């Protein structure tokens, strides 16, 4: 496959680290503000709320398919952008961190999209946001926030590994 430019890989790795940093701050803030510190205690709630997780299998070491990997990266970021937007207004304590995280995720999605455009592998249909969970209580919104942030963190770890291998 066409190798990816070094500057794109270096910028992407930096953006992943930047988002991971801010994401872990958000997790700490949600834990401090609401005592929701263990995402594994919210798995059942996640199922009932329908909090999705983004796949990155095409970026794995065993089954790397570059174009699909970029596309999954972009779709995953797009999904988490939607999820994080659903948490808007969660509270004043975490609001600023959430806003910055949203911007960083959106900017990283643009970096990936621009690279897909350069490689001429942009999907014909612009990605549309899948239906987002609706939260009927403050607790569901907070728990949804913890789950979405936790899923994003693991997504970013896998993305970092894949990009590291490519760099």
């Amino acid at each position, binding site marked *: 496959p066409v190798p990816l430019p070094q500057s794109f890989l270096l910028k992407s790795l930096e953006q992943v680290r930047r988002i991971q940093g801010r994401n872990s701050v958000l997790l700490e803030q949600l834990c401090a503000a*609401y*005592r*929701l510190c263990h995402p*594994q*205690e*919210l*798995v*059942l*709630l996640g*199922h*009932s*709320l329908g909090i999705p997780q983004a796949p990155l299998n095409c970026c794995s070491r065993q089954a790397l398919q570059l174009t699909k990997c970029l596309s999954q990266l972009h779709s995953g970021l797009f999904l988490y952008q939607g999820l994080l937007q659903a948490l808007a207004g969660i509270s004043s304590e975490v609001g600023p961190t959430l806003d910055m995280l949203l911007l960083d995720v959106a900017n990283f999605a643009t970096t990936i999209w621009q690279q897909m455009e350069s490689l001429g592998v942009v999907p014909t249909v612009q990605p549309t946001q899948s239906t987002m969970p609706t939260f*009927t*209580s*403050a*607790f*569901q919104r*907070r*728990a949804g926030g913890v789950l979405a942030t936790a899923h994003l963190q693991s997504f970013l770890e896998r993305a970092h590994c894949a990009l590291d291998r490519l760099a």
Partner: protein
Amino acid sequence: ESCGHIRLSAPAVRLGDPVVASCTISTHCSKLDREPQILWRLDDGPNQPGDRQQHLPDGTQESIITLPHVNHTKTFLFCLVPWTNSFQILDQAELQAGYPPASPSNLSCLMYLTTNSLVCQWEPGPETHLPTNFTLKSVRSRADCQYQKDSSILDCVPEDGQKSCSIPRKHLLLYQNMVIWVQAENVLGISKSPKLCLDPMDVVKLEPPTLRALDISPDLVPQQPGCLWLSWKPWEPSDFMDQKCELRYQPQLRGTNWTLVSHLPSREDQFKLCGLLQALVYTLQIRCIRSPLPGLWSSWSPGLQLRP
């Protein structure tokens, strides 16, 4: 629709009071065993069973727990069930505890001619441990301080945590009475301070005049031993107000008292003060008050050290 739902007897209670909580698990919670044991957790505490768990007619499971004395101002209450080898949180409730607000006291207001605003301050009263909003309320009133129930009441919301509020000029009807009070409100109750009735112009924060020594040349006026020539003019922003002033002076000697000269005008170009001892250095100060209309004394002017 989520699996579990917590209900509290009250979202906020007085510190030390009891609270009763129930957690119901709906039947359509497919992933759970038929009759899971419902557990409770306070903040980071241990998971503990409720006082009793029962099967409701509609098939839902309900656990009830009583917290005899809530002694934290903020507590997170979790309802959990065991699931595979961990526990799953089904719902979380935030329990607040504190006190209803006491009546704010010592409400006082000053009108600042420089900013043209009326600033009122008050004592909030004992800590309530709950988010408590203070609002300075004011309404125009007749001379007798009565006002119609439907007259529009102005709300002045202080900046975060401040125990004072500034009513801007455009909301003030000067030379008319207004009734002012403070309202404190939190989830446990509302309280009001006693009402003040005042005309903003009667509570002007007056600054003292500028006191100066006049050096009258001897050929103009024969030097008189033990006399001082002084002049003063009112604080510029209060120039339009009739004021009366008083002067006090005292030699710089331990144990001497102030001597007071009252009923002085607010502007004096040449004032002769006699009867002073030549050898001594005197400290002189002046202050004024709006007069004859009501007003508040200004502070004393900075001390002027002079030797007659």
